[in-house]
């Protein structure tokens, strides 16, 4: 069967009323968390994981993907109207978008963001559908050493390639890896660092860590800055319709943003935030109205918003085909798959084609839902921004603990929530990135298993790791991704890298 047939079959699954409902819940929640500053898609998926234990696996995963997509849409609203990005991938949108809103052009800014997200989401999801089977074929020749090399590359790009300091990124990563060795070793059954505490034998839950770092850490951080008062929301004046000139200036950035975002997301090269920064830079160089940049150039909204959605779709390529999460949200979605006993990877396309293609097809439908949610209904979402911060964060913390209590109401688990929350606060305060900890925790055991498998096969011969061109090439790229940015920073050219610091998604 061709991809097209699979996709049609997937559409059959996706049009099931229950699945449509899951998708709708996902995109609605996703838009809401995208709009609300302080919570992002990674956190929301983490919060919802325990709640979906008893639900349908396909539906739950579709809901999670919907949250990811929705977060990318919703984030632009906050950036444009509030100048506080709803999530990290929308930081650049705030640069031009907020200027447009100040000039009374908030409507067209929101429109170009939503339509750009739609165009990019649609194209990138189709690209995902047509690319995935090829990568699956490629993945079949992957042995443990190639997987290990890929994971090393993912470690490096998540922690050290971007951000303001190689040292801080690596510190976060190794803290994550240190947490990852807690529990029973998957290969030998040996308990490690559990100190006789039975709750630790299962290892540290990804959801507990993610919720603690993203929700508790963020709440502590925001609260500790003192009462700054709520920022002013710029009302949407006039209609959200774009003029002819807006359309003419927007469509090329949409396509360029998609072309930049999708590969960035698909390669283990970081997430949506990086894609949106690169797209912004490209638009700034290519524009015919350079004087408008910094004062509300529509290209500066259209491009990055398309790029971050395309990157979100791109992230699903390594996640679905290789089981390799390259962003925090993807890492938590992987935990979601594992919760249902599913291991994403080439095998999943063979064992659960209905689920995979249903998921991909649902994303196409979710895009249409999101367009409706984010254009005609935009004024409803803006209302969310008027929730007073005390109630907002009190609610977030209540939900944060709800997930942990629901899975495992033990004092050990709740203490971990508190300790990791404080750690998240401290890391935020001192500029240590959070995502590498989460990615290290989930990828660490996987990388260790692949390494030890590869070495078992070669009977302890370490040169096996570089004995195929593919694995050697991947390790070389990883090395370059570690050394080159460090060298740039050392030469004092790190400003650009610091800007593209990925925080969360």
């Amino acid at each position, binding site marked *: 069967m061709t991809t097209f047939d699979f996709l049609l079959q997937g559409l059959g699954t996706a049009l099931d009323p229950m699945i449509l409902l899951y998708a709708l819940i996902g995109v609605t929640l996703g838009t809401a968390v995208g709009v609300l500053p302080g919570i992002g898609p990674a956190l929301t998926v983490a919060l919802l994981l325990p709640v979906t234990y008893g639900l349908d696996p396909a539906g739950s995963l579709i809901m999670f993907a919907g949250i990811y997509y929705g977060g990318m849409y919703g984030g632009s609203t906050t950036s444009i109207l509030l100048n506080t990005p709803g999530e990290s991938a929308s930081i650049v949108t705030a640069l031009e978008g907020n200027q447009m809103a100040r000039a009374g052009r908030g409507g067209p800014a929101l429109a170009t963001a939503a339509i750009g997200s739609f165009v990019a989401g649609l194209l990138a999801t189709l690209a995902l559908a047509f690319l995935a089977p090829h990568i699956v074929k490629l993945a079949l020749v992957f042995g443990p050493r190639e997987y290990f090399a890929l994971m090393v590359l993912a470690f490096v790009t998540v922690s050290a390639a971007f951000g303001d300091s190689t040292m801080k990124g690596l*510190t976060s990563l190794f803290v994550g890896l*240190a947490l990852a060795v807690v529990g029973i070793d998957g290969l030998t059954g040996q308990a490690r660092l559990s100190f006789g505490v039975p709750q630790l034998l299962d290892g540290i839950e990804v959801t507990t860590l993610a919720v603690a770092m993203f929700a508790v850490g963020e*709440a502590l951080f925001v609260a500790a800055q003192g009462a700054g008062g709520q920022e002013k929301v710029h009302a949407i004046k006039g209609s959200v319709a774009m003029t002819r000139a807006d359309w003419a200036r927007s469509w090329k950035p949409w396509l360029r943003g998609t072309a930049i975002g999708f590969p960035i997301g698909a390669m283990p090269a970081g997430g949506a935030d990086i894609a949106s920064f690169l797209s912004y830079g490209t638009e700034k160089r290519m524009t015919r109205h350079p004087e408008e940049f910094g004062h509300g150039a529509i290209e500066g909204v259209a491009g990055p918003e398309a790029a971050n959605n395309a990157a979100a779709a791109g992230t699903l390529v390594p996640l679905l085909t290789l089981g390799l999460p390259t962003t925090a949200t993807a890492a938590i979605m992987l935990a979601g798959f594992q919760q249902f006993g599913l291991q994403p990877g080439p095998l999943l396309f063979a064992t659960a084609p209905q689920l995979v293609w249903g998921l991909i097809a649902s994303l196409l439908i979710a895009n249409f839902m999101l367009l409706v949610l984010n254009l005609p209904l935009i004024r409803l979402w803006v209302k969310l921004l008027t929730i007073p911060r005390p109630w907002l964060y*009190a609610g977030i*913390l209540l939900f944060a603990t709800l997930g942990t209590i629901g899975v495992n*109401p033990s004092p050990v688990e709740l203490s971990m929530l508190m300790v990791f929350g404080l750690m998240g606060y401290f890391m935020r305060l001192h500029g240590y990135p959070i995502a590498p900890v989460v990615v290290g925790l989930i990828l660490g055991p996987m990388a260790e298993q692949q390494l030890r498998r590869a070495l078992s096969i070669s009977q*302890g011969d370490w040169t096996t790791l570089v004995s195929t061109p593919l694995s050697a090439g991947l390790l070389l790229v990883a090395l370059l991704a570690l050394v080159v940015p460090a060298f740039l920073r050392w030469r004092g050219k790190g400003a650009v890298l610091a800007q593209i610091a990925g925080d969360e998604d």
Partner: protein
Amino acid sequence: MSDQKNADGRRPGGAAFFVAALLAALGCLLLWQGLSIPDKGGYAGIGSGDLPIFIAICLWLLAAAHVWKGMREGSHRLPRQEPLPVLFIVGGLAMQLILLKPLGFSIASGLLFACTAAAFGKRRIHISLPIGIGFALVVYGVFDRLLQLNLPAGVLENLIFGG
């Protein structure tokens, strides 16, 4: 508020040295645990204990890097932090942790809600506590009763939802 607040951890490089100490301590812990695992690695040559040891070495290298950086650059002045809201939130979490079993989800979580609201400036407990408990009860109803998540019940839950 006052300048005294800038004293703790803001000496030149103070934060970096502090982080270095933590990393080194974590490294020692991993090394100790890694070395105490008897496993010899079998065919692979590396076993359960070797990864913790490797991570321990990396953590020490990072600790050394922190020390070096702290000596060379000193620490950057941090934006002033308010300690009180942090205490409120941590206190709320601790209270929830302790009171969850004896008093049930709703009261314990309502307290957390009120404490968090207080951390963000809503200090009137007689308003925020009832709101929090009410909200937590609704959450309990939805998640425990409808979505079959197992939340610890207390007096209030048994009274309203009937055990």
